[in-house]
C-alpha cells in the first residue's frame, strides 16, 4: 500500500456556470470556479499558496489564447489575488486532469505548500476557418496531418468511431451498450443541477433516432462542448479536518504508463494494457480493488471510453463491458453506479473534472439526490485507456 494513502484530501469544490453561450470570457469563468472552491472549503483566497492545472485545448487547433481559450497557471496568478507569496505550482502537458491533482498531492506530502487550487477551464471552440487558404487555394496539411487531412480526417470523433468499429467487430457488441451508458448518464444528469442537460430527459428513441456524427457514433455518444470551469481545493488531511466540509481523502492515484506506439491513429488494440497500467497502480496504492468501489466515475469524452475503462480497470472482463452495462447494473441503485453525475455526455465537457468532483461529493454525503447511501470509496478515471489517462480514488475515511 502507498505510504501517502489518506494523507491528503479534497476540501472544496467550485463550479462556474456551464453553458454554451457564456456572458464571460473563459478566464472570468475560471475565476468564478476558483473563488467558489475557495469559499466552499471555508478558506480565504490569501491562504491558497499552490496552483496546478492542465491547460490544454479540447483538441489540436482549437485555439490557445490564455484567458480566452485556455486558463494557465500564469493567468490565474495574474488575475486572482491569492497568497502574496505563492509557494508552488505545476502545469501539466500530458495525462488528464487527475495528473495535476497527482502533482498537488505530491507537493502537499512534500510540505511544499499548504492549500492547492486545481482547476480545469474549457472553452467550446467556435467553427473553424477552413485552413490557411486566404488566397482561395487549398489548405495545406503539415506534419502527421498531411497523411490524414487530404482524406477528410480532421476530428477526434472519427478516431473514436474507428476504435468502436473495431470493438464491435471483435466482441460482437452493438449500439445497445452505448445506449445503456448514454441513458444512464442522462438520468443521473437530470438529478444534477449543474448539468447542461439537467432539465432535458432522454428516451431510448431519442438515442436511437439521433443523427450520426461519425458512424457508428451518434450525437449522444459525444460529450457536450461547453464553456466552463471546475476548481478543487486540495490540502493535507490534517488541515482538511479543520475546514468547512468533511474531507474526501485521496487513497491512491495512477497514471497510464504503458507502451503505446500508435499515436498516429490510436487504435483499440492497446486499451487493455494501457488501462491496466493505470488501474493496477490505482488499486495497489489504495489497497482496494474494483469490488470495493461504491461508484465509478469513468471518463466519457466519447461514450465507448467508459466501456473500455470498465474492462481495463477490472470491473468486468475484456469484451464483457457491453453486457455488464445492461440490466440496471450501472444505475444509481445498481451494483456499480457509473457516472452518477451525468458524465461529460450530459453534464458537459469538463475533461474529467466533473468526474472527480462527483467522487468527492459521493464520499462526503454532498451528492444531493444522487447520493449513494454511505458511499465509502469511489474512483475517478479520466482519459481513454487506448491513449492516456490518470485517476484517483477518494475515500470517506483516511
Amino acid at each position, binding site marked *: 500500500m502507498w505510504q501517502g494513502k489518506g494523507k491528503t484530501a479534497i476540501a472544496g469544490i467550485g463550479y462556474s456556470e456551464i453553458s454554451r453561450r457564456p456572458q464571460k470570457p473563459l478566464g472570468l469563468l475560471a475565476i468564478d470556479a476558483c473563488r467558489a472552491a475557495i469559499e466552499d472549503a471555508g478558506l480565504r483566497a490569501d491562504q491558497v499558496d499552490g496552483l496546478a492545472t492542465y491547460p490544454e485545448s479540447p483538441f489540436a487547433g482549437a485555439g490557445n489564447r490564455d484567458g480566452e481559450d485556455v486558463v494557465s497557471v500564469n493567468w490565474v496568478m495574474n488575475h486572482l489575488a491569492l497568497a502574496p507569496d505563492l509557494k508552488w505550482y505545476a502545469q501539466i502537458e500530458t495525462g488528464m486532469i487527475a495528473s495535476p491533482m497527482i502533482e498537488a498531492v505530491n507537493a502537499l506530502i512534500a510540505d511544499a505548500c499548504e492549500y492547492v487550487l486545481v482547476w480545469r477551464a474549457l472553452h467550446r471552440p467556435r467553427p473553424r476557418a477552413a485552413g490557411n487558404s486566404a488566397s482561395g487555394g487549398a489548405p495545406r496539411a503539415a506534419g502527421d496531418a498531411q497523411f490524414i487531412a487530404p482524406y477528410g480526417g480532421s476530428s477526434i470523433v472519427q478516431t473514436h468511431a474507428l476504435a468502436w468499429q473495431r470493438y464491435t*467487430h471483435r466482441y460482437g457488441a452493438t449500439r445497445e451498450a452505448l445506449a445503456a451508458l448514454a441513458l444512464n448518464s442522462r438520468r443521473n444528469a437530470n438529478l444534477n443541477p449543474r448539468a447542461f442537460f439537467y432539465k432535458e430527459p432522454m428516451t431510448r428513441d431519442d438515442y436511437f433516432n439521433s443523427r450520426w456524427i461519425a458512424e457508428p457514433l451518434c450525437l449522444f455518444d459525444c460529450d457536450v462542448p461547453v464553456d466552463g470551469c471546475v476548481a478543487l481545493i486540495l490540502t493535507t488531511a490534517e488541515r482538511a479536518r479543520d475546514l468547512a466540509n468533511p474531507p474526501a481523502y485521496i487513497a491512491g492515484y495512477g497514471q497510464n504508463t504503458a507502451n503505446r506506439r500508435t499515436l498516429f491513429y490510436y487504435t483499440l488494440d492497446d486499451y487493455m494494457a494501457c488501462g491496466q497500467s493505470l488501474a493496477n497502480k490505482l488499486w495497489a496504492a489504495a489497497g482496494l480493488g474494483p469490488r470495493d468501489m461504491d461508484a465509478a466515475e469513468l471518463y466519457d469524452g466519447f461514450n465507448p471510453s467508459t466501456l473500455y475503462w470498465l474492462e481495463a480497470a477490472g470491473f468486468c472482463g475484456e469484451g464483457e463491458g457491453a453486457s455488464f452495462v445492461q440490466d440496471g447494473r450501472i444505475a444509481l441503485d445498481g451494483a456499480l453506479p457509473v457516472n452518477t453525475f451525468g458524465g461529460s455526455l450530459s453534464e458537459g465537457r469538463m475533461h474529467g473534472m466533473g468526474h472527480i468532483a462527483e467522487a468527492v461529493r459521493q464520499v462526503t454525503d454532498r451528492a444531493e439526490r444522487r447520493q449513494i447511501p454511505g458511499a465509502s470509496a469511489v474512483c475517478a478515471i479520466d482519459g481513454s485507456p487506448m491513449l492516456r489517462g490518470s485517476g484517483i480514488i477518494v475515500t470517506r475515511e483516511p
Partner: protein
Amino acid sequence: MAAKKPIPAADDLSSPFWDAAKEHRLMVQRCGSCGYYNHPPRPYCDACTAQDLRFEAVSGRGTVYSFTVMHQRDVAGFEEEAPFINIVVELAEQARLLMVSNLPRSESARVKIGVAVEVYFEDRGEGVVIPQFRIT
C-alpha cells in the same frame, strides 16, 4: 464556395513518399537496422531509434483495419461529400502499418473489417497525387 480539399505539405521527411506517389508508386520509410516500417516517416526509427532509414516500395496490398462514415459537414474540403467513408488500411508488410484512405459511398455495403484492398493513385490536380485504396 466550398473550400478545396487539403493538400499534403511535403517536408524533408515526407517528400520521398509524395514524390513516389506522383509516379504511382507506394513507398514507405523503413529502418535499415531493425526492418521496421515507419509511417508517417520519422527522423528516427519508432521501434529502435536508429537513424538508418530509407524508403522502400511496398506491395500496396492490405486489409481494412477499421472504417467510419463521417456525417458532419464541417470537414474542410469535404462539405459537399458528407457523408463520406474513411477507411484505415493495414498494409500487408507489417502489423499495424496503417494508412488512411477514402472509399466511394457506393462501397458502403461492401466495406467490412478485414476486407482486402489495394492501392491506386488519385490525381487531385496541380501536381498533387495521393495514394487511395479500393476493395479488391
